[in-house]
């Protein structure tokens, strides 16, 4: 607390109250949303902004989305700065001009007025199940322009001084294959905004705006100070790392994600020069998401209690040349942009591994695999939108984690039984994959496999995955995780699909699709891994006895580690390597 006029107790009380409001907003969306991707996968976020439009609290939602609210607010204020009235509610999804990330992510933002003055903002965004475009789910990989991807909303008023914009609502309703889900989810977002407004007003009433302002400002300043302190502890220098996207279609050309992380004193500059140019496909990643993951990656370098407000983003600068895949120009298609965003996170962490190896994590599954299967069944439209996540790479002192959301997201999975009960699909398995975690002194998290069978007559299917040619990296002699794989069995014949098929595929009844994710990268030399831990992995069926012997150099006999044989095997492996 630098400002001595502030009471440290009130400060803490206000901070708690704000985050509790943002969580309450998140709860309302989860419980009253209609679409599986929002209610089950929890692909949505909530935040509160202060009177300057700066984030002051984040709900327990998705880091990759939370860091994009600043861009959205900046555009909103630039356009409506002098025209924000009590009872207004703003809506947008445009990645080129309103701070959106891709069209399915619709932002709903409500200003909070107290005694006639604009005091803050209740902010929500949610991934909607369909906003039109060429394929169900609105995430077609093969779109070449955003105009093919569905309904684009610049920053507009969904409510004007309390009056609903029925024209706009009708347009939205007519431009989605899932009007009930989309309008239902929008209602949930609106309700969350009202809840946020109510909570924020309570605080204003309790303390008075003038008394509250210095606390809000100090919250931002404290977050900034703490972030600067974390950065100061990272040695100065420029750390470079390239990570790669496998590329598009049947003959993929690798796409380079280049980062140069420069730490100087208490500031970080992330320069993405050298990154590949934008492409004729839907994976171009608008800058708001790139900013968001970059903030997240740096924020992850500490587990101290930095307040989750915009102040911590201040010492972080991101530069991405226009026209690259990390700062595409309109009208680049971007519906499936997530893969790039998550790879920017991996690349920044990879760069920092060179200098703060104890704080980083080896490569994980690479972000969500995005899958849409849709069509008509029994005269009704159906869409399954899956955002599948699954593992972490290893840490300096801990194994990776299997069965967990990507650290830059906070997604959930959709229950198999709900999918089967509501959609013409069956799930044949959902399981961990042995020997998929990158070997290391600390092992990477295991991959998962999930298999779908269509029971409707036909459907259209789009897929975005990655990490087959460029699997998740290991750190400090840790091995990479296993590559991802997509298998489609169509009319009895099985083919391996590209990671990013550049077309919508037609499925027939009985066709089976299996996605195997990439495994998490390992950390450190596998041959120094505690043999008992290797044994435990073998007992659990997570590592095969053969991999234990060949990669870890651990020989297991009769359910026990054979210490002498292990020593010999490890020595032989070392010799062979030299």
């Amino acid at each position, binding site marked *: 607390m630098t400002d001595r006029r502030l009471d440290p107790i009130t400060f803490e009380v206000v901070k708690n109250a704000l985050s509790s409001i943002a*969580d309450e907003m998140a709860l309302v969306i989860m419980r009253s949303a*209609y679409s599986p991707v929002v209610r089950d996968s929890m692909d949505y976020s909530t935040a509160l902004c202060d009177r300057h439009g700066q984030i002051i609290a984040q709900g327990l939602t998705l880091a990759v989305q*939370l860091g994009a609210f600043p861009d959205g607010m900046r555009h909103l204020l630039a356009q409506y700065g002098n025209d924000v009235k009590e009872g207004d509610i703003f809506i947008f999804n445009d990645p080129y001009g309103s701070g959106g990330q891709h069209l399915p992510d619709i932002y709903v933002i409500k200003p909070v007025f107290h005694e006639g003055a604009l005091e803050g903002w209740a902010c929500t965004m949610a991934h909607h199940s369909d906003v039109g475009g060429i394929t169900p789910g609105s995430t077609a990989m093969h779109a070449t322009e955003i105009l093919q991807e569905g309904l684009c909303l610049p920053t507009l008023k969904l409510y004007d001084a309390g009056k609903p914009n029925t024209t706009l609502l009708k347009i939205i309703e007519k431009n989605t294959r899932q009007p*009930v889900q989309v309008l239902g989810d929008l209602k949930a977002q609106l309700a969350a905004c009202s809840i946020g407004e109510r909570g924020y007003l309570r605080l204003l009433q309790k303390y008075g705006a003038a008394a509250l302002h210095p606390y809000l400002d100090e919250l931002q300043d404290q977050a900034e100070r703490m972030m600067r302190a974390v950065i100061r502890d990272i040695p100065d220098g420029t750390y470079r790392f390239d990570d790669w996207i496998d590329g598009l279609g049947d003959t993929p050309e690798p796409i380079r994600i280049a980062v140069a992380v420069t730490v100087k004193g208490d500031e970080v500059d992330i320069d993405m020069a050298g990154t590949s140019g934008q492409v004729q496909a839907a994976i171009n990643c608008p800058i708001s998401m790139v900013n968001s993951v970059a903030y997240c990656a740096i924020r*992850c370098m500490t587990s*101290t209690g930095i307040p989750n407000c915009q102040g911590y983003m201040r010492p972080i600068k991101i530069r991405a040349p226009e026209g690259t895949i990390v700062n595409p120009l309109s009208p680049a298609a971007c519906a499936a942009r997530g893969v790039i965003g998550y790879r920017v996170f991996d690349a920044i962490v990879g760069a920092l591994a060179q200098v703060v190896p104890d704080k980083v994590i080896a490569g994980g599954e690479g972000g969500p695999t995005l899958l849409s299967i849709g069509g008509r069944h029994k005269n009704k439209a159906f869409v399954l939108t899956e955002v599948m996540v699954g593992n972490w790479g290893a840490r300096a002192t801990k194994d990776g*984690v299997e069965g967990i959301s990507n650290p830059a997201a906070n997604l959930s999975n959709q*229950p198999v*039984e709900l999918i089967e009960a509501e959609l013409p699909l*069956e799930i044949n398995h959902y399981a961990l994959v042995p020997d998929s975690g990158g070997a290391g002194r600390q092992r990477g998290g295991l991959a998962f496999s999930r298999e779908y069978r269509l029971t409707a007559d036909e459907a259209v299917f789009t897929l975005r995955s990655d990490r087959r040619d460029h699997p998740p990296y290991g750190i400090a002699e840790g091995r990479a995780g296993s590559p991802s794989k997509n298998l489609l069995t169509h009319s009895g014949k099985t083919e391996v699909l590209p990671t990013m098929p550049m077309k919508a595929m037609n499925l027939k009844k009985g066709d089976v699709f299996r996605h195997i994710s990439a495994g998490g990268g390992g950390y450190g030399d596998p041959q120094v891994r505690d043999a008992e831990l290797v044994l435990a992995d073998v007992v659990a069926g997570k590592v095969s006895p053969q991999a234990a012997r060949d990669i870890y150099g651990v020989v297991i006999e009769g359910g026990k580690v054979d210490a002498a044989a292990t020593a010999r095997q490890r020595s032989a492996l070392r010799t062979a390597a030299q």
Partner: protein
Amino acid sequence: MAERVGYRIGIDIGGTFTDLALLGTDGSLITRKVSSTPDDYGRGIADGIVELLRELSLKPSDIVDLVHASTIATNAILEQKGAATALITTRGFRDVLELRRLRIPVLYDLQYDKPPPLVPRHLRFEIDERMAAGGRVKQPLDHASVEAAAAEIAKSGVKALAVTLLHSYANADHERAVVEALRAKLPDDVFVTCSADILPEIREYERTSTTVINAYVGPVVRSYLGALAGKLKGLGISAPLTVMQSNGGVMTADAAVRKPAYIVESGPAAGVIACAHLARRLGRANVISFDMGGTTAKAAMIEDGEAARTTEYEVGAGINLSSKLVKGGGYPIKLPFIDVSEIGAGGGSIVNIDDAGTLKVGPQSAGAVPGPMCYGLGGERPTFTDAMVVLGYLNPVAIAGGRVKLDAARAHAAIEAEVARPLGLKIAEAAHGVYTLAAATMTRAVKAVTTYRGRDPRDFALVAFGGNGPITAVEIARALEIKDVLIPPAPGVFSALGLLVSATEHSAVRTFVREVDALKLADIEAASRALEGEVMQAFAAEGHDVKKVELLRTAELRYVGQAYELPVTLAPGSIDLGAMRSAFDAEHARTYGHSSPGDPVDLISLKVMGRLAAGDGEFDRWSLASKPASAGSRKAFFGAAGWHDTPVVSRADLAGRKRQGPVIVEEYDSTCVIPPGCMVGLDPLGNIAVEVTP
């Protein structure tokens, strides 16, 4: 000749103390606190009962009923000390238990680790079979695969087995066949349970987790309750033993042995039930139950005389407020629970300054040993209790009727060195900061059970109990703009009283998942009658008078497409589908702030609950006989209102006339603080009643 007085005993076990409450059919009530015996909790109970019987010159046959709340199941999970457990699943799905729902309970922490699965991977077995979503057999049960799993499980020497097959909520034939086959193969003492018996509901992870927990704690609860029953028999007590469930109803010890997952939160439930009973006695429909002990504080909402319930609960999610956001930090049980939000702030909570330079109270606790610094038992870190001594709220010499001596100087020194100096505050201000902050954290717990459900705390009275509840109650009430605070007599053992007034409950559920417009009224009425019959039969089987059973029907509904349903109470008599639908729209609007009366609605389930009130449960003559306090007054600090010479009185001193705060009410098991500006008196039932001013 006067009828012989019978006694019912409530036994509430906590980590530090076991509370006993003895209620006579004549209305007399005696309470007792004895030390818990964690190595064998039953011993402490038996010793306590023997002591009470001797003191009151009662015979074992005078005890007519025992109701028990125990943390045995929770502790088994928290300490990972349940039975070695195996799991059988449909082929392809043994990892569902470990994959969980993927969510991370904390943002931006790359060092996070998940809770380990309660069944390790090598004890999770898959068999060949498959049900379709509607319950149609897609692939018949392959007995050879069952035999193979059975052989492995028998060899593994596990003590418990859970069986969860896909879509068994729709068709349990395969699950039951597997259970039967395995029972035949496994030793008799292996606890076997299947999901259809414990949670026949859609969503495989939650169902599997719940079933696994039932198996995991099964052998532990069975041996504990078995041993306790043996000890009671040894004392000559033949009265039936019942156990409180997490939902506040009681079940027989036999039922608890079969379905131990139902008793995981029996302790916290008891306090809320006591509170609900008190609310009904006072004719107050809406109260917030607030219980603050040594390590945690718990809040729950009572609306229209009923404790609010939930089916979303995670054991060991840590002390958290947003468990409703599927944080993933613990082990989910999707069974009826009283909706209690719990946070790590109690008398023993350690006070410290975190990395950000901000003050924190808890969640680490000094416990009873070493305890707060002022206890002088080796505590090295200042606690909430130390701050209360500095403020003058707690008696600086001794508490618990002189039993626990306090060293006020140690408390002062610790708060000064570790809180005041680092924050640049005066010592009293620092201690008051601890008080304010703890109250603010607890405010969050109260909000989690009220505003998070669309309820306004200002419409409620706050009933505070537990050893530390009465100290903080008024401060919390002020933060939430609540006007009335009530402190029941014997607040320290109030939870145990809840055991004596809890009703016996049985319920039956039928799952529909059908659009309301497509329902036939005759079908749903027939289902309702069948469920009522089932419930009545359950009471009759336990030898109860079914005429005294009160029935409550609820329908759970949601808009088509939603994932979470809301309950609506159905009026007795014939069912009005239109009224049910409108009631749902209204509840949705109330809870979430919006509704869609035009959208189609699904009826998810119909539930009938039967309730049989505990017999002679009115404790009118509860221990009002507190002795007048000896101290006259002491200096106490009230933040902005400064230092006040504050009268220290007993509860009895409040009888007859209201007093103006500041006042401190000292009792054997707690201390109530009434700040300046508030009025305090006694209500006709002996509760301390505070009128809170902002």
